[in-house]
């Protein structure tokens, strides 16, 4: 039992280690820094969005619209390049992400509706907008050299994108564990009613959480568009699921109140290196699917096993049962 609990606490490290070891065995030169850097860059897009989602999930909310915001922000940043220049266009793109997040947040807080359904709807809206303004055709940027520069690796490991991700996730870790607003996020996710009663501005926290998630999705989308010099309405359609998987593998609970930035980092890296390792082996996509699905389920089952059995058998779950993912509907 002890072992299981330990295994679950450090599961991300264990899996990450296992993945690296296995891939080192099967892939020639996998542990070379450049390959690691590749995995990291691969993980950066998922990772940036995962940062926002980690906060939201801890606060008991979810955002399914990240992939669509990703596409929309990228498109805007590319379209505007010709009009206002690359950097301003990029900033506007990120702002689009922020605004999209603000819309999500305002609707969830204002209408007091379940965020799962709401962001399902806004996902549709943002995705439709992306198709609408591009007439469903991909759009092209002005400067391909910039793309090349952005994708360059420094110190053999970091691209600008992956370095940004690492910095942000470390910041997130400090914020979540060491600051009062960070702790309040947990309170809001764990028991919204109690948080409210205690004078915590839960609505504001939830709203800002959505803004953060939108902004980061926007940032990731803008970076992606700069790196590929393209904005496309179909970008990011597979992203949301991967991001949720990464965050959950990292031990953040979908019901709110529990989670950590470092866990998310581990989850993102795990998924990144797993993909690279499997790709190096030329494993067919559907086998990759089966493997990722199995890992996801096994991890969550393990988590269940230790959180229910880790406590003395027979003890019952906490009295406060408000499920925060459902927050909003019956306040």
């Amino acid at each position, binding site marked *: 039992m002890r072992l299981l609990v330990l295994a679950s606490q450090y599961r991300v490290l264990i899996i990450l280690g296992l993945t690296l070891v296995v891939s080192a065995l099967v892939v020639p030169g996998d542990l070379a820094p450049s390959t690691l850097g590749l995995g990291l860059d691969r993980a950066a897009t998922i990772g940036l969005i995962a940062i926002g989602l980690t906060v939201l999930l801890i606060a008991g909310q979810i955002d399914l619209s990240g992939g669509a915001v990703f596409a929309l922000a990228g498109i805007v940043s590319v379209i505007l390049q010709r009009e206002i220049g690359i950097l301003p266009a990029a900033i506007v793109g990120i702002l689009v992400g922020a605004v999209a997040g603000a819309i999500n947040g305002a609707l969830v807080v204002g209408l007091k509706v*379940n965020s799962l359904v709401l962001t399902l709807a806004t996902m549709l809206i943002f995705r439709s907008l992306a198709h609408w303004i591009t007439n469903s055709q991909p759009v092209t940027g002005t400067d391909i050299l910039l793309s090349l520069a952005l994708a360059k690796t420094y110190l053999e490991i970091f691209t600008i994108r992956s370095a940004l991700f690492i910095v942000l996730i470390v910041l997130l870790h400090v914020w979540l564990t060491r600051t009062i607003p960070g702790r309040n996020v947990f309170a809001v996710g764990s028991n919204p009613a109690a948080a409210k009663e205690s004078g915590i501005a839960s609505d504001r926290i939830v709203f800002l959480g959505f803004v953060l998630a939108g902004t980061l999705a926007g940032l990731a989308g803008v970076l992606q568009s700069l790196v590929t010099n393209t904005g496309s309405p179909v970008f990011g359609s597979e992203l949301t699921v991967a991001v949720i998987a990464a965050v959950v593998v990292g031990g953040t609970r979908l019901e709110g109140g529990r989670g950590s930035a470092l866990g998310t980092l581990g989850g993102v890296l795990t998924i990144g290196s797993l993909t690279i390792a499997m790709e190096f082996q030329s494993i067919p996509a559907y086998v990759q699917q089966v493997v990722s699905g199995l890992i996801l389920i096994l991890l969550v089952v393990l988590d269940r096993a230790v959180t229910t059995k880790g406590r003395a058998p027979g003890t019952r779950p906490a009295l406060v049962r408000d499920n925060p993912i459902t927050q909003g509907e019956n306040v």
Partner: protein
Amino acid sequence: MTDAAMEISGVNRNDRFTRGSRLVDMLSKAGLALAILAVVLYGSFASPAFFTAGNLLNVLTSMSIVGIVVVGMTFVLVVGGLADLSVPATIACGAILSLGLQPLIGPVPAFALAVALAGLIGLLNGVLVGYVGINPIIATLGVGTIGLGIVQAAVGGVIVYGSNTASAEFAKGRLLGIPVVVLIFLAIALIGHFVLSRSFWGRWTLATGGNYSAAEASAVPVKAVKAGAFVITALASGISGGLLGLTLQSARPLIGSGYEFSAITAVVVGGVSIIGGFGSVPRAVAGLVFVQLLTNVMVLQGVRTPVQGFVLGILIVGAVGMDAALRKRGVA
């Protein structure tokens, strides 16, 4: 309050209790009917092709396949299971197997086996969600991914064609002028409605969604009930997939993608609560009718696909927002 009840209480302390929530209650029930009516009226004015038997039958036929899934998904939402995201996998399973097995064991056994195997996927979901206690979103996402991967590996990505014309004719045919798929959908909806609103299983489903621990402490087999909702959805999707395969006479692994969102959309627009404990099959079907009619009107008006998506998105926001507002007034 009935007169008899008044008599029992005898005392007048009970005039504190009134039935203030009735109006709101009605409004939340009638809201959707009004919305459907509005769409029908608008459609009839805007497009001469709309209010024709042919078009309405088209709408009905188009919604039947997803409608069968909607019936199952209602159970998932009511039992507090959030959503079943493995529907694309179960539909693919139903479609591919019901066609692929035809040459081996004949059309009817193939169909039955396809539905049964889809049910098995549902059982896996159910065990993970109901017995192991995993969040349904994650469990069905994972199981769906695995299922779809296996299906793809099994058929190697190629299209599976039907080989039995009789079954194809049956699935595409009509009975008394009504397409067979529509009849099957209606039958399944009726059964679903009966089970949810009249049978002990339905009461258990509502109780489990309403308060899991209280239901457990009331000797309701909550785990089985929760698992059951996923099995029901998987069986429904299996049937839906099988019918889809038969009508199209071809099936690909990705044949069912998008059906999970359409089904959830319909159920939610129908006002079924995503936190569970509340909802009915007619409501979900009404949600489906509304969405389908609206889409149809837009198509007939030549509205472009992205704009349709945009409108639909706004609509869902409106629907859930209104539902939440009404519910808040109805019962605090």
